[in-house]
């Protein structure tokens, strides 16, 4: 069945509402044709990554939208930028002038288009970024897509650059994939019930489980069975690692995530096609993959907050530091959102972090180039996602370890 356009869609496509809306509709229509969709579904909100500078096309496209009268159809939130507005020394303009100036201009344009300035990869850590259960939305950044689908039960496919903002402009997406009931059914069960309690108490478990699921699930939809309990920070780590290691856009957790009260519910009443029993050796293999350092190098940097730290994670960090100073020569970069930083300031957490020598970094992340100031050698992270990307993109030895060991190592000046 061919896709029939309504009057408004046809108007946009014919260019009656300007060249920007025409291109947006053309891209959303192309997405429908490519995916074989036969209808569109209206969306309620969008979280876009097109605002993250990725070369001249991203900037030229945004300038085009602004000049040609683009109008948003839904509330639209911004993913992290390449730069931090209040910490220009993080990625100095002198080192990469085109990228930094481009990123700054891109932030201005998306604000001028009417996007809300969240500049975070974890929009779900603030009320406006949490679409209700069952809502159709546009997600782009991979962990946010995973969290929105898995933990909130709102529905989105992973929309790439250009397409995400186009969908926000026309307020609709092709009705396929994770927007449909059938597309959300678990097909691959990961049985973790045989793991010992030591593992279930291990803060690294969600990260490592995410890597295991990501590498094994392929194009299927995973469901984790036998995990006794997990809060939002653990689920964030799970989906972020799964997305980094294997493009996971949705993973159910039996008894924990909203579409998986039972295994049967998660799989839509159909028996799963595959079961993988996850054992300690699988988790150890995942951990080994995340560390490239020998471990005895002098520690230079500790990167935390990928995805952006929640207020609870920030409070735990500050409590663990407990006023102690970082060792000489160690840089600690803690990425988070403006919203979490504002709450941290109310609670005095920012001052306590600064007193220990740590830096709160807003609007951006540290795992991608150009390399952030301070990441000039052996770097520790408590994030599987950071480690997964950082090992390929940053050209420094890295190691993945728990927040507790990140803190103790930062104070000691070596990996402990």
């Amino acid at each position, binding site marked *: 069945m061919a896709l029939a356009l309504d009057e408004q869609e046809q108007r946009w496509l014919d260019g009656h509402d300007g*060249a920007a809306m025409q*291109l947006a509709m*053309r*891209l959303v229509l*192309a*997405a429908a*044709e*490519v*995916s074989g969709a036969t209808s569109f579904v209206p969306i309620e909100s969008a979280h876009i*990554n097109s605002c993250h500078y*990725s*070369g*001249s*096309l*991203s900037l*030229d*496209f945004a300038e*085009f939208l602004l000049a040609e009268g683009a109008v948003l159809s839904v509330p639209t939130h911004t993913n992290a930028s390449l730069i931090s507005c209040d910490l220009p020394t993080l990625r100095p303009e002198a080192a990469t002038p085109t990228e930094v100036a481009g990123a700054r201009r891109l932030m201005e344009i998306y604000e001028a288009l009417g996007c809300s300035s969240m500049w975070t990869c974890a929009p779900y850590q603030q009320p406006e970024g949490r679409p209700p259960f069952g809502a159709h939305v546009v997600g*782009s*950044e*991979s962990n946010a897509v995973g969290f929105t689908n898995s933990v909130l039960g709102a529905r989105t496919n*992973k*929309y*790439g*650059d*250009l*397409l*995400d903002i*186009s969908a926000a402009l026309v307020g609709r997406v092709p009705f396929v994939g994770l927007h449909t009931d059938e597309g959300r059914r678990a097909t691959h069960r990961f049985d973790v019930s045989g793991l010992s309690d030591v593992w279930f108490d291990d803060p690294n478990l969600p990260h490592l489980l995410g890597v295991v699921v990501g590498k094994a699930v392929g194009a299927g939809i995973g469901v984790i069975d036998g995990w006794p309990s997990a809060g939002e920070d653990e689920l964030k780590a799970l989906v972020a690692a799964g997305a980094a290691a294997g493009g996971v856009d949705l993973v159910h957790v039996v008894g924990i995530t909203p579409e998986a009260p039972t295994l049967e519910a998660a799989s839509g009443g159909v028996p799963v096609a595959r079961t993988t029993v996850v054992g300690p050796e699988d988790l150890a293999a995942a951990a080994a993959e995340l560390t490239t350092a020998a471990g005895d190098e002098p520690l230079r940097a500790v990167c935390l907050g990928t995805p952006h730290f929640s207020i609870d994670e920030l409070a735990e960090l500050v409590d663990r530091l407990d006023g102690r100073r970082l060792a000489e020569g160690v840089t600690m970069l803690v990425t988070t959102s403006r919203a979490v930083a504002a709450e941290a300031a109310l609670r005095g957490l920012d001052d306590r972090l600064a007193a220990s020598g740590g830096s709160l970094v807003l609007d951006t992340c540290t795992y991608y180039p150009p390399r952030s100031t301070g990441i000039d050698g052996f770097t520790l992270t408590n994030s599987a996602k950071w480690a997964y990307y950082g090992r*390929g993109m940053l050209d420094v030895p890295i190691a993945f370890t728990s927040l507790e060991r990140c803190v103790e190592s930062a104070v000691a000046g070596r990996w402990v």
Partner: protein
Amino acid sequence: MMGPLVLEGRWLVEGELRGAVLRLDEPLSFWGGFDPVTGRIIDRSHAQHGVSLAGRVVAMPGSRGSSGTPGVLGESIRRGTAPAAMLVTKADINLVAGSLTAAALYGTSCPILLVASEVFAGLVDGARVAGPPTSSL
């Protein structure tokens, strides 16, 4: 001399498709795997690392699209380092979006033709091919 093999397939982005096939042995992610400045494959794990795609009819098996793909492909189209056209076995919206946007912004695109796996399997590296008719012809 025989004329080019006229391919059957479905246009994802219509345009001029004519030339010698450069067949990739494995999927390529443009983001992180291709340098739009030089037009070469920079993914060290790719079997054809270092090969230039500029101006070639690139036959790509499967897809390794990422959300950064449109930016890289679009940038290479702008710079003139992109493939002259692409033959794919799997429709990838990120390639299509990059090409369509370059067409709107710069007036030049990279035509993309979706071909069946059997057609792809029969493509020999260096074979001269041409695309099917476009709607505008």
